[in-house]
């Protein structure tokens, strides 16, 4: 009962933040509502027993990545978005497509509901130790490859954002 109440409260917060992202005209308002979505997703991860993922969601996503977004919005002094003929066309053709996508995804995800089980609050929780074990054993090679990816991303960001003389 408590779990259901918590789930619906946090899920409502999450969806409200996502809808607000869609409705706001100014990018800084969209960024702040995206932070709300990410914070409530961290709470959902805690409900699912994923403590490590919840913490890195807060630190990496809500902390680092969103700060980067807010910095860029302030740096470029982004104003309210303007609507053109193309945006109205996107609305007319996009709205039915979006409705079709949500219907299809929900259908596919729930069609084999006989194999889906239930989540019990506190029945299973993974600590940082539990996540670290497979990360540094079975997934050691992908983990090392991501370090190269990050290095290339840093170099790419520096080269792209450099001012040309």
């Amino acid at each position, binding site marked *: 009962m408590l779990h259901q109440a918590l789930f619906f409260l946090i899920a409502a917060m999450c969806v409200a933040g996502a809808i607000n992202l869609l409705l706001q005209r100014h990018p800084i308002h969209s960024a702040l509502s995206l932070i709300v979505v990410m914070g409530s997703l961290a709470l959902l991860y805690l409900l699912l027993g994923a403590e490590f993922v919840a913490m890195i969601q807060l630190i990496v996503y809500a902390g680092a990545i969103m700060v980067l977004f807010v910095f860029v919005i302030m740096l*470029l002094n982004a104003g309210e*978005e303007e609507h053109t003929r193309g*945006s109205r066309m996107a609305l007319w053709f996009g709205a039915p497509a979006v409705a079709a996508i949500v219907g299809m995804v929900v259908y596919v*995800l729930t069609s084999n509901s006989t194999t889906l089980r239930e*989540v019990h609050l506190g029945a299973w929780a993974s600590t940082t130790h539990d*996540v670290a074990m497979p990360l540094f054993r079975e997934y050691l090679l992908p983990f090392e490859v991501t370090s190269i990816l990050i290095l290339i991303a840093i170099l790419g960001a520096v080269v792209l954002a450099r001012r040309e003389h």
Partner: protein
Amino acid sequence: MVPVSYYLVLSAVLFTLGVAAFLFKRNIITIFMSIELMLNAVNLSFVAFANMHKDVSGHVFVFFVMVVAAAEAAVGLAIIIAIYRTRETLNVDRVNLLKL
């Protein structure tokens, strides 16, 4: 207790809101943020399935998705800054040439 399907439906709704924002928004930074929203929705599915199977591999994949998202955010925002320097606009309708 809550069925796993509730989490999956929430994930689908968040993903679709991300797609909608991607299609309807005209500001390039907001479009980029909607991609982050879609990645987050997929992460929620991963964590829900990890809980259902009592297997932490799903959490490891969420970790990798976050790493890729961080790299993508760094490169993408650098591209946005480069576009703004040459075009002086963030509206995607006005950015219609590939060359700088």
